């Protein structure tokens, strides 16, 4: 098997995540799809690290993980406060800025 298949898998997972972000309207599920996309990117970075034979790709994946952790904390806090304000986690209901 050619290790390029890992890249194809990563692209497939990223596509599924992106489609999920467009399809779903529950804010939590949308957020989970974003996490899936980040994970797919991480897989690609790790495979690139193997391809080039150095550890820089793994370092980038490590930083992606740290940023994802920070993002999850803030994003979930926003979802919780949004839910408190309007008793719904649907992204359709958050339309205060609409004309």
């Amino acid at each position, binding site marked *: *098997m*050619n*290790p*390029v*298949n*890992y890249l*194809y*898998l990563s*692209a*497939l*997972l*990223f596509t*599924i*995540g*992106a*489609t*999920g972000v*467009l*399809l*779903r*309207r*529950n804010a*939590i*599920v949308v*957020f*989970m*799809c974003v*996490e*899936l996309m980040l*994970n797919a990117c991480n*897989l690609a970075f*790790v*495979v690139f*690290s*193997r*391809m*080039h*034979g*150095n*550890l820089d790709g*793994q370092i980038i*994946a*490590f*930083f992606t*993980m*740290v*940023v994802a*952790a*920070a*993002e*999850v*904390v*803030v994003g*979930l*806090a926003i979802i*919780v*406060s949004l839910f408190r304000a309007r008793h*719904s*986690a*649907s992204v359709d209901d958050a339309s205060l800025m609409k004309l």
Partner: protein
Amino acid sequence: MSATAQLAAYTTSTGEAFQFWVLGTVAVIGALCTVLMRKAVHSALCLAGTMIVLAVFYLANGAYFLGVVQIVVYTGAIMMLFLFVVMLVGVTAADSLKETIQGQRWLALLCGLGFGVLLFAGIGNASLTQFAGTGRANANGNVQGLAALIFTKYVFAFEITGALLITAAVGAMVLTHRERTERAKTQRELAEQRVREGKHLPPLPAPGVYARHNAVDIPGLLPDGTPSELTVSRTLRERGQVRDVSAEALGDLKALEQRAEERLDRTRIEPPHPRRTEEASK
């Protein structure tokens, strides 16, 4: 000879190929379930499964530290945070499947498909033939190699990451902390308010107690036989977990009455016997 060496450089072992095809299928199914499952809890569990599979792939690609971190941080911390928030929010967060924008679903699928084709074409056309492998980079140990890079080449990014984490922690606290703007009402004030409103003075009625059912999710019956909403906790009502056994209870009651009637009929039929004996004695 150089051809075989080059071939060995970019083909994996049969074991890894087998692992890739089996676990890759699991990962894709998990990702699809994350998108397609209706309840957020099921989505979260499917995503956790996909992340564990990805951790195995990291290990297979020589990223030992990242594989462990993936399991500890992603499936251990982040997914549990997700489940925690689903628990906080999920009571009324049923996802409606009604389309609010006409044709949005098909457009989204089309966009996803186009994007996927673009990505696959890009990877297919890239000249990815040389795989050096991480053997030499991991020679002194994966963790040691990563640490050397983090504290030399990427030390600035590492320090900025620290600032980012502190900011995120403070931000989460600011966002979820709610300042109480008014004094909490005392019990006396609440009682007076109830009297003033005159809606429901006494405590709420208890849930139904039946011969065969006795739990908090079973509503009590009003005199006319309809279940009373007031007797069940609001959380259970919103989750749709109210177990209505009123029809069953009324059916039981009817069956009991019928049986009692039959018994009474039999006792009413029985009297002829004594008369017959009387006639016989005559």
